C-alpha cells in the first residue's frame, strides 16, 4: 500500500508511452482551442486538427495492442488491458464520427467551431481515462472531465431555450449522480483502505467494514446507473437528448454511455469480483449481480414501451438508447458471472463490441436526423419523415438500415452485438440472468414496432407537403458511408475484431500483481 504520497512523487512509476493515446487527444484539443483564438475565421481547420489527433491516437493504440507494454503503469493507476483498448477504439470512433456529422450543424447554427472541437476532444480524453483508469480517483477525474465538457456542449446553442433546459437538467442531475458516485467511492475506500481497484479486489476477501462495502457498491450502482441511463435513473435522458443539439445527442447516446460502461465494468467486474471461499465478497457479488439484473430488466421494459409512445424521432432514439443500455447490461452481468478469466475477458469484449455496434448504428441514424432536422431542430417529428423514402432514397434506405440494425436484424451490426452479449449471460445458467435474456429478446420483439414505424412512414406513405432534398456536405457523407460500411462489416465479418477485443495486449492479464 502507498503510505506516503511523496515517495511516489520522487520516484514515480511514470510511463509516458502508456498514456500516449490519451495525451495525443488532449494535445489536439488544446491546439484546436488555441488555433481558434488566433485564427477565428478559418472554420474548417480545427476539425481537421481534431481528426488528425484522433487518427494518430488510434494508430498509437493499435501498435500498443500488439506490442508488449506492461499490464499497468503509474503505480497501478492506469491499466493496460483489453477493456481499455476495446473501449478506447469505440471512443475514438465516436468522436471522429461526431466531428464529421456536426459539420452540417456547425454551419447551420453558426457555432464557434474551435470551442466545440476542443470540448469534444477533452470529452474524448475524459472517456479514455475512464476506460484506462484502474483507480477510483482516476476514473472520477475522467468522468468529470467528460461530464463538464458534455454539459457545455449540450448548451452550445445559447439562444435556444430547449438547449439551455437540456444543459441545465443534465448539469444538475449529472452533478447529483457524480456526488453519489464520489460518496460510493469514499465508502469503498473506507471499507478497504485503498482506491486502487487491483488492491480492492484483493481486499474484499477480508474488508475492514463489510457493511460499508455494500453501501458503497449500491451508491456506485446509482452513480453509474445515471450515466448509462439505467432505469429508474434514466428520467433525465429523454429531455436532455431531445433538447441538446442533434449531433451532441448522438455523441451523448454513444460515447459517454460507453465510457460509463467501461468504468462500470472495471469497478464491478474487475474491482469487486467473486472470490471463492470468501463470505463477504460472495455476498457483495451476489447482491450486485441481482440488483443489476433486475434493474436491467426494468431498463429494457421501460425503454421499449416508452419508445412506442413517442412522436419525436430524437425522443424515440433516446428511449431506444435506454433499451440498448439494458441489452448491454445483459453482457455486463454475464461478465460478472464468468467463471474463468478468459470467459470474463470475452464477456467484457462482448460489451465493448456491443457499444461499438450501437455507436456505429446510432451515429449513422443521428447523422441523418441531424441533416433532416434543419435549423433549430425544427423537423424531428415522425410526421416530418412522411413519404421521403423515394424522394431521397439514399438517406431513407440508410436510415432504414440503421433502424433494422438497432432492431437486431441478422447480417447487421446490431444482431452480432446482441448475440455476443446474450451469450455469456446464457452461459452462466443463473436463472435470474436467463430470465433477463428472455426479457431482452421480448424487448427486441417489441422494438420492431417503433423502428419499423419510421420505415413505414418513409416508404409506404405518400408525402403531402413539399420536400426539398437536403444538400449533403462532404463530412456528413463520409460519416454515412463509414457507418453503413461499419454496420455491414460488423454484422458479417466481425470474427477477427471480436477475437481482438477479447485478447489482452500482453501475457499478463489485467494488472494482476
Amino acid at each position: 500500500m502507498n503510505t506516503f504520497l511523496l515517495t511516489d512523487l520522487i520516484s514515480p512509476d511514470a510511463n509516458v508511452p502508456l498514456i500516449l493515446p490519451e495525451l495525443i487527444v488532449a494535445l489536439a484539443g488544446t491546439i484546436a482551442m488555441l488555433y481558434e483564438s488566433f485564427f477565428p475565421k478559418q472554420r474548417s481547420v480545427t476539425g481537421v486538427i481534431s481528426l488528425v489527433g484522433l487518427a494518430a491516437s488510434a494508430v498509437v493504440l493499435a501498435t500498443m495492442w500488439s506490442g508488449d507494454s506492461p499490464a499497468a503503469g503509474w503505480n497501478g493507476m492506469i491499466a493496460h488491458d483489453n477493456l481499455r483498448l476495446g473501449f478506447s477504439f469505440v471512443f475514438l470512433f465516436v468522436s471522429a464520427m461526431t466531428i464529421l456529422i456536426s459539420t452540417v450543424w456547425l454551419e447551420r447554427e453558426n457555432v464557434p467551431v474551435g470551442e466545440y472541437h476542443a470540448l469534444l476532444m477533452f470529452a474524448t480524453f475524459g472517456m479514455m481515462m475512464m476506460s484506462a483508469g484502474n483507480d477510483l480517483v482516476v476514473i472520477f477525474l475522467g468522468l468529470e472531465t467528460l461530464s463538464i465538457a458534455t454539459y457545455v456542449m449540450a448548451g452550445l446553442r445559447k439562444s435556444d431555450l430547449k438547449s439551455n433546459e437540456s444543459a441545465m437538467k443534465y448539469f444538475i442531475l449529472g452533478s447529483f449522480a457524480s456526488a453519489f458516485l464520489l460518496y460510493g467511492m469514499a465508502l469503498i475506500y473506507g471499507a478497504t483502505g485503498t482506491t486502487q481497484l487491483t488492491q480492492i479486489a484483493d481486499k474484499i476477501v477480508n474488508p475492514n467494514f463489510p457493511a460499508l462495502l455494500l453501501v458503497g457498491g449500491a451508491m456506485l450502482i446509482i452513480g453509474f446507473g445515471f450515466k448509462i441511463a439505467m432505469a429508474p435513473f434514466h428520467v433525465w435522458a429523454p429531455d436532455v437528448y431531445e433538447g441538446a443539439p442533434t449531433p451532441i445527442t448522438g455523441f451523448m447516446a454513444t460515447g459517454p454511455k460507453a465510457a460509463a460502461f467501461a468504468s462500470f465494468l472495471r469497478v464491478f467486474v474487475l474491482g469487486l469480483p467473486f472470490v471463492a471461499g470468501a463470505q463477504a465478497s460472495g455476498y457483495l457479488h451476489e447482491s450486485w449481480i441481482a440488483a443489476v439484473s433486475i434493474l436491467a430488466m426494468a431498463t429494457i421494459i421501460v425503454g421499449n414501451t416508452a419508445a412506442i409512445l413517442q412522436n419525436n424521432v430524437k425522443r424515440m432514439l433516446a428511449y431506444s438508447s435506454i433499451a440498448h443500455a439494458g441489452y448491454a447490461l445483459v453482457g455486463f452481468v454475464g461478465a460478472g458471472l464468468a467463471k474463468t478469466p478468459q470467459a470474463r475477458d470475452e464477456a467484457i469484449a462482448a460489451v465493448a463490441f456491443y457499444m461499438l455496434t450501437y455507436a456505429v448504428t446510432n451515429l449513422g441514424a443521428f447523422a441523418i436526423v441531424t441533416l433532416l432536422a434543419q435549423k433549430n431542430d425544427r423537423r424531428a417529428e415522425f410526421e416530418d419523415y412522411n413519404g421521403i423514402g423515394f424522394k431521397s432514397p439514399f438517406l431513407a434506405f440508410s436510415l432504414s438500415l440503421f433502424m433494422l440494425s438497432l432492431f437486431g436484424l441478422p447480417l447487421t451490426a446490431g444482431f452480432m452485438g446482441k448475440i455476443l452479449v446474450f451469450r455469456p449471460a446464457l452461459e452462466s445458467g443463473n436463472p435470474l440472468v436467463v430470465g433477463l435474456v428472455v426479457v431482452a429478446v421480448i424487448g427486441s420483439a417489441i422494438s420492431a414496432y417503433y423502428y419499423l414505424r419510421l420505415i413505414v412512414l418513409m416508404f409506404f406513405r405518400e408525402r403531402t407537403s413539399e420536400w426539398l432534398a437536403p444538400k449533403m456536405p462532404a463530412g456528413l457523407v463520409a460519416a454515412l458511408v463509414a457507418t453503413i460500411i461499419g454496420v455491414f462489416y460488423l454484422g458479417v465479418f466481425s470474427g477477427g475484431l471480436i477475437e481482438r477485443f477479447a485478447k489482452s495486449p500482453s501475457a499478463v492479464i489485467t494488472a494482476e500483481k
Partner: protein
Amino acid sequence: MDFLNSNLLTILILIPLVGAVLTLAHQAFWKQESQLKWLTLGFTLLNFLVSLAMFSTSAKPGASGFLFEQNVPWIKAINTNYHIGVDGLSFWLLILTTFIMPIAVISTWNAVEKRPTAFYVFLLLLESAMIGVFVSLDLLVFYLFFEASLIPMFFLIGVWGGQNRIYAAVKFFIFTAIGSLLMLVAIIALFFIYADQTGLGGSFDLPSILNAMKAGNLVLAPQTGMLLFLAFALAFSIKVPVFPFHTWLPDAHTEAPTAGSVILAAVLLKMGTYGLMRFNFALFPDQARETAWIFITLAIIGIIYGALVAMVQPDVKRLVAYSSVAHMGFVILGMFSFTEAGMQGALFTMLAHGVTTGALFLLVGFIYERRHTREITQFGGISNVMPIYATVFVITTMASVGLPFLNGFVGEFLIMVGMFQSQVLSVTAAANWNYIAAMFAGTGVIFAAVYLLWMVQRVFFGKLANAKNKGLEDLSWREIGLMIPLLALMVYMGVFPRPFLARSEDAVKAIKERVMHQAGGSIEKTELKPDAAADQH
C-alpha cells in the same frame, strides 16, 4: 468440376446478389428504367440455368452426407460456420425457387410503374435469401437467411401493394419476427446444451448436433426438449401458416403485388414446412411424435376452415389465399403422419402447390391488370371474350382441386394414404383416430372442388352480363409464354411423379425412422402395421 461441386450453392446465392448490385449501378449510371426488367430477368434465368447443374450425377455427397456441401468457418468467436449443402428435402424446393423467379419477373413486365429499380432490387435480394434458407446447415446461418427474406417481402408488400398494404406489411413482419426471435433463443440455448453435454464447445452446426444426438452424447431432458421444439415450431407454424397463426396470410397475399403473391405462395410458405422437417423433426423426434396429434388436429381445422372461408370470399385473390391455408394444412397433415407415403406426399404437395397456386395468382393478376378489380360479382361469362384465359384458368383450377393426372392429385392422394397408415396417433390417442383424421381431411378435397369450381363458374361461365367485360383482350403472347412452363409442369408432375419423389426418398425415410423408431415400446407396432395395411390393398 470440383470447383463447381463445392461452390455451386454459393454461386446460386451470389448471382441474384450481384444482379441486385448491378441493377442499382445500372440505374445510377444510365437511368434506363426500361432495361431493368431485362437485366433482372437475365439474372434470374441465369440462376435457374446454373441451378440445373445440381442434376449433375457426378456430384458426390460431402462429409455430412449433403450434396454440394461447403463448410467455411465464419465467426470463430461464436463458432458459427458458413455450412451449406443440399439433400432430398431441399433439392426440389431449390429448383422451384430458381424456376419461379423468372416467371415472377416476367409477370411484372408492364405492371410496375412505381419505382421499378427498387422493385427489381428487392426481388433479387429476396431470391438470394430464399436460396440461403434452403441450403443452410448451420442454425445461425439459417436464422440469418430466414430473417433476411423478411425485409424484401416487407417492402414489396408495403410499397407496391394494394389499398391496405401498410397494415398487411406490418402484420406480416411482426408475426414472422416474433416467431423467429423465439427460435433464435432456442438456437442459442441448443448451442449451450451442446457445449455442456459434449464438452466440445458450443455449436450451431446441424450435422454435428445431430451426430451427437444419434451417438447419445447429447440428450435433451424431456421438458427442455419440448420448450425448444415449441420455440422452433412456433416460428415455422407462423410461416406455413398453421391455423390459428394464419391471419397474416390472407392480408399479405391480397395486398401484395402479383409477383409478391406468387413468390409468397410458391416459396416463402414452404420455408415453414421445410423448417419443420429439417429442424423440428430431426432435432426433436420425440417431441414431434408426441405433439403430432396437435398438429394433425390443427391441420384438419386448417383444411376445413380454409375451404369454408374461401367459399364465401367475394375477392378472387383472397379466395386463392385461403385455398393456400387449406393446402398447407394438407402438407402439415402428411408430414405429421410420419409415414413414408404421407411425408413424400407432403413434399410433393409443397412443389405442386408452388406451381399451381403460383399460377393461380398470376392468372388473377392478369385479369386485375385489365379490369382493376378482383370482385367475383364483377365478372361472369368471361370465357366468351377470353377463351384462352378461361382454358388455362380451368386447367390450373383442376390441378389445384386435385384432378388425377394433374399434379395436385398425386400429393393429396399420398397424404391420404399416409394418414390412413399412420401409427403416430396411437401413441397418444385411441387406435383408430388415424382413419377419422384421414376422412376429415378427405372432406377438404371435396370442399376444394366446391369453392374453386363455384368461383370458376361464376367468373367464366354464364352470360356476359357486365358491359365493362365486353372489351377484354385475351392473353398476350407474353402471358401465354409465362403460363406454358407452369401448365407443362402441372401435367408432367401429375403423370410422372416418380423423379420428384425419388429424390427425397432417402431423406424422408431417414426422418421417419428417426421419429418413429425412438417410440420405445411401439417400435414393432410401427414397423408391422404399414405392411399389414399394404397387404389389404
